[in-house]
């Protein structure tokens, strides 16, 4: 039986799922290996019976926490995809501003109808088994992670500075792990050890 996979999105632009939808021919090969039971960007159907959950977006309100916990309960494996889900992403920019002001900027006079709190990556709420970093994610890296999981292998994501592509990291002397750690620290959802 093919493993069932589902996609979920929280606060984010859904650009990572778009990357996956853009796999084009490879998506057909992928469908040979898995059954997609939920993928809002490409299909209407939805099912809560899935093995692997791919979660995009960050957690920015109480309601998100409940939904994340439900996903964790349903899925055997949870994969965070994209910067918002893996490190909080660009949504975290609001974290040091007044939340009421943030709401008013975004929703204007309807601000009272919405709730929000500082953005966090999903592993601040639930345990995550694998990560596909990036904004947006790299299609090839996504496939690498999926293939690894299907083979029962922990996906290997390199921990060294991505020299040629990410000059910034090197410039500030950071490995990928350092950068992620610093980012989390900066936006206040990881306590300084």
């Amino acid at each position: 039986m093919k493993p069932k996979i589902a996609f979920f999105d929280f606060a984010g632009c859904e650009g990572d799922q778009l990357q996956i939808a853009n796999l084009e021919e490879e998506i057909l090969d992928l469908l040979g290996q898995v059954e997609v039971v939920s993928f809002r960007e490409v299909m209407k159907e939805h099912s809560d019976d899935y093995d692997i959950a791919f979660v995009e977006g960050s957690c920015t309100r109480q309601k998100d926490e409940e939904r994340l916990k439900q996903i964790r309960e349903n899925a055997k494996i949870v994969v965070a995809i994209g910067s918002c889900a893996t490190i909080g992403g660009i949504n975290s920019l609001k974290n040091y501003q007044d939340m009421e002001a943030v709401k008013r900027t975004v929703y204007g006079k309807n601000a009272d109808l919405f709730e929000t709190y500082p953005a966090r990556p999903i592993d601040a709420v639930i345990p995550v088994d694998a990560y596909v970093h990036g904004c947006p994610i790299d299609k090839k890296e996504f496939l690498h992670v999926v293939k690894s999981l299907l083979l029962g292998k922990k996906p290997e994501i390199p921990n060294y500075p991505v020299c040629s592509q990410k000059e910034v990291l090197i410039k500030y002397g950071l490995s990928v792990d350092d950068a992620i750690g610093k980012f989390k620290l900066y936006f206040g959802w990881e306590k300084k050890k």
Partner: protein
Amino acid sequence: MNEDKKMHILSKEAFSEFINNLIADNTLNVVGVKSKGEKFAFGPLESANQLRLDYDVTLLPPKKYFFPQRETLVTYEVACGFKTKDFQNNKSTVIVGVHPYDIMALLHMDEVFRETKSDPYYSQRRKSSIIIGTNIQNISDSCFAPSMGCATIDYGFDLMLTDIGNKYAIDVGSHKGAELLNKYAKGVTKAFAKDIQEVGKKKMEILNGAKQKFNFSSELIPELLGKFYEKDSFWESHSEECLSCGSCVLVCPTCYCFDVKDNPDLSLKKGERTRTWDACLLEDFAKVASGENFRNTKATRYRHRYFKKGKYLFDRFGFVSCVGCGRCSSNCLPDIANPVNLFNDMYAESIKAGFQIDSAIIPEVSIDTVEEIKFAPRMATIIKKEPMTENEIKFELKLDDGSDLNHQPGQFVQVSVFGVGEAPFGISSSPSRKGTFDLCIRKLGNVTSKIHTLNEGDRVGIRGPYGKGFDSEFLKGKDLLFIAGGLGIVPLRSLFNYVLANRDEYGRVILLYGCKEPRELLFGDEILHLKDEDRVEFKATVDWCPENEIWDSNIGVITTLIPQVDFDPQKTYAVVCGPPIMYKFVIKDLKSRNVPDDHIIVSLERRMKCGVGKCGHCQINQLYVCKDGPVFNYSDIKGVPEAL
């Protein structure tokens, strides 16, 4: 002198035509130095106009044409097994514009890739290539090739160009070069004395033109390094700003370390195994599956780079494997990779400290190729799967071609699992057993976790046996003291069982075996009853025993067993294998019992990736565990600081 080895002259126009003729020949793949932004790089040539022989240095060295950044070693199909890649591209590659230091670097790489086991991919590409070198016209700011004696070169090329105004002087270095000139160039004339003089002058200009210079002779490097290994503060202060990014070694023309990974396609039924450049400066380079990192600080990794180039390769091959191209220093962001600065600092400190530094004596080297590396594993089938503890399973395997493994006790094999990868395992059965062999595998990383899910009848790939095992012949007639800690019993079992199978030929046999707690005891059924046997003296210990388990023997670490046995240190050989932490303590105790150094034999674990002494992952100082080990005599490694 051979007639075609004389110097020739070609006008610049005729030279362009020569290059264009090469490009026009579809049987040749012509590459050369072109501009890339403000820098230069080797790339395919479409016309002679693209050639920039006035370049200072290229971003990457031409080694990428022989040892590409990424290449497929084997392909696999779950149904059929592994297959070596076909060499479809039989085109000769002509590389135009190689500087002398890069030619020297290729000569170094040749030795590395042909030593003992030759790399078929590298050597085939090397054989089918033609090198057209060029003397340096503009020396880069970070180049120190003159200090390394690599600014000019008299061999290693097919043709060597020197720009002398409106024409090129061409040295012919090989038959291949002469033929090339004959076939594709028109208007070649003999060089006159003044041309030859002009070439000499150009070379002198290069030799005196470098901004970066050693304040001492580069022949002192190996000896100088030897004096500085233990100066931790020296290495720490020089590597303080290191980002562990690996740029210095990834651009190096003499670096050859690589990583091997499996890339399944989306069917998951087939895929390829690729090797990619790797860097010993990266944090995880020497990390093994159990989490142990044998070079876990920036300073030790930084030091390893200098020692590998300046000492280890010198001891093995007789050359300091740095050619002075300066790429490392120009690519280092914190600007700490310049060997000139480091060695000048080192030299200054050694003068201050009053060290006597002599030129290193070039070791006598004989590099032979014994065989070609076979990257494609043979297939083997799991005959029996027998759980031993919670985390360890014993697998009995049989090679599908029906042959025996023919291993020495103590050797290891590389086991491949389709799509997941390859990992090394000590063989735990005696070679006296025919037909099948045993591996005892602890679940730790990806490969081992996957192997644990396999069942009887499933197939895996096997490469090997590899490495140097125990010398069971030499040990005949000696008393043997086996000391095994935890998983260390696995490789020892191959010798232990061999000895038991040939019991009359050995003296006393003592086995001391310790593990953390009773339920972690391996081969319990097999060895616990040894207590009651005359032919073996056996003692076991556990570090501790939880209340719900039963243990009626010694409690304490393995060293608590050593005082409990009497042995004659002159007649006894101790055979030791266990977790890295164990060796120091066991050896100390053996020494206190007057066991001579050469009576202690150890089996070591490192991250063996290629298994054939090339990829660099298992290196402990100058030794490759996969090739020089995993079994070592203590007298050979007691001076090797990274070993124990």
